[in-house]
């Protein structure tokens, strides 16, 4: 069995003195998509930010076997971690081209891949990112991560607030990316989780309460209700 690309061990995170992640432990396999799930406000985004060192944290984080929890954020990212934040966080005053150029970490950017996945961005290269639609901004945010050769992608709610057609495009781009790089995906849309993820980690109250295969969770309505507080319409559709 191959070594996990990411091991999170007893990770805790704090924002302004408030504990938002508590003793979280899980790992991300070196292949495929692992979904980090949970009800609103359980600390999924904070967990991602703790892994990256964007918030105050304690505990261990290992990337490809090497401890990175004592490194500043930019050093962790330089080791091959792509980050797609919640709410896109594109630089609105910069053009699309500048957003992508800024994200290039070395002299071998994968511009061909970005242009193939997001042809719309090529046409809008000179447009200010702040004037793009939410869907287009999400493309920029994804493209910033995919333009580099990564060992791991941390993708936080990439379909939040997007129209269904755009959700499909984003999911397709992530599926394409997942062929070459493992992804830790925070996602509320269970259709997308079902389509992309092989494994799931469920958080509740800042702690991990379930780890297993995606089908073990998503095929079990009781677990979905208990852990996520939602009804999975996809499983209903499947059972008909």
């Amino acid at each position, binding site marked *: 069995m191959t070594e996990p690309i990411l091991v999170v061990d007893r990770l805790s995170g704090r924002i302004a003195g408030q504990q938002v992640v508590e003793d979280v432990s899980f790992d991300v396999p070196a292949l495929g998509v692992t979904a980090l799930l949970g009800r609103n406000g359980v600390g999924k985004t904070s967990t991602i930010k703790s892994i*990256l060192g*964007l918030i105050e944290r304690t505990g261990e984080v290992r990337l490809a076997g090497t401890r990175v929890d004592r490194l*500043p*954020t*930019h050093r962790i*990212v*330089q080791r091959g971690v792509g*980050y797609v*934040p919640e709410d896109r*966080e594109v*630089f*609105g*005053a*910069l053009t699309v081209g*500048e957003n992508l*150029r*800024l*994200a290039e*970490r070395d002299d071998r950017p994968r511009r061909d891949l970005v242009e193939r996945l997001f042809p719309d961005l090529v046409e809008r290269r000179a447009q200010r990112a702040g004037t793009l639609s939410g869907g287009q901004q999400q493309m920029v945010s994804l493209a*910033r991560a995919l333009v*580099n050769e990564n060992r791991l992608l941390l993708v936080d709610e990439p379909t939040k607030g997007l129209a269904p057609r755009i959700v499909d495009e984003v999911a397709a781009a992530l599926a394409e990316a997942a062929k070459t790089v493992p992804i830790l995906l925070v996602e509320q849309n269970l259709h997308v989780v079902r389509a992309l993820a092989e494994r799931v980690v469920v958080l509740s109250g800042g702690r991990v309460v379930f780890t297993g295969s995606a089908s073990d969770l998503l095929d079990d309505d009781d677990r979905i209700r208990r852990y996520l507080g939602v009804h999975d319409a996809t499983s209903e559709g499947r059972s008909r």
Partner: protein
Amino acid sequence: MSTLLLLIITGLGLGALYFLVASGLSLIYGLMGVLNFAHGSFLTISAFLGWEVGRRVSDGTWAGLAISAVVGMLVGAVVAAATEYLLIRRLYERHIEQALVTVGLALASVALFEGIWGTDPIYTQKPEWLGQTTEILGAKIPNDRFLLIACAALVLGGIVLFLQRTRYGLIIRAGVENRSMVTALGIDVRRSFTIVFAIGGAAAGLGGVLASVYYGYVSAHLGSVLLIFAFIVTVIGGLGSLTGAAIASVLVAVLQQFANYYLGGTGDLVVVIALAAVLLVRPRGLMGKVA
């Protein structure tokens, strides 16, 4: 008509000085969230050392002034970068400590300058042409105003080119908008902090040398006086906006000149009232980003 023109061009000249100080303040606040109360000290030390070197090489000539300007910019850049590296870097996100350190540095440096160069202003020589006037539409404009305006325009153009055309400029523009996301792209944003301090220090250093031309003297309080107006300009223009700082510099200085002439020397008061009005009506300033 000639009075109006004189007031406008004199205002533009003074605005140029304000901009040279405010540009650095605005960039530093925009990127790092640091209100740098020591910025005036960068200006003063640059003015003194620029004057010391310039007068020894060729006092009262263009060559002497050019050397003063180069020395002033270098000193400003080095002192500012050293301040960032040695003092400010440890205090990011700790705003009260930053204010205490920079205020302390400003007070201590004025005392140091007074100890070295005395408490009285030291009158300086300048090239003959700068002491003369040029008549435009009946207004006799002091020639030094043209030099100030030209230098500020060059500095503005240079900074804009740097921000638009270089990778560090790109990082700085992005960092002004969202510093943590720049870090999350794998960029060590702290390097840009030092560069921004150096650029701001160089502009303030040039401002110090030009202030000695404008006022005709150097003194330990040169920076403190200009810093107050530079802060006002920075707030009115919008913290973090270079364009805002440029526009507000001109507006504030011209307004000040008009109020001094037509309202019995109330220029400073009118500027403070303008600041209060902007804070009430548009707290983010003319071109500042929405919080």
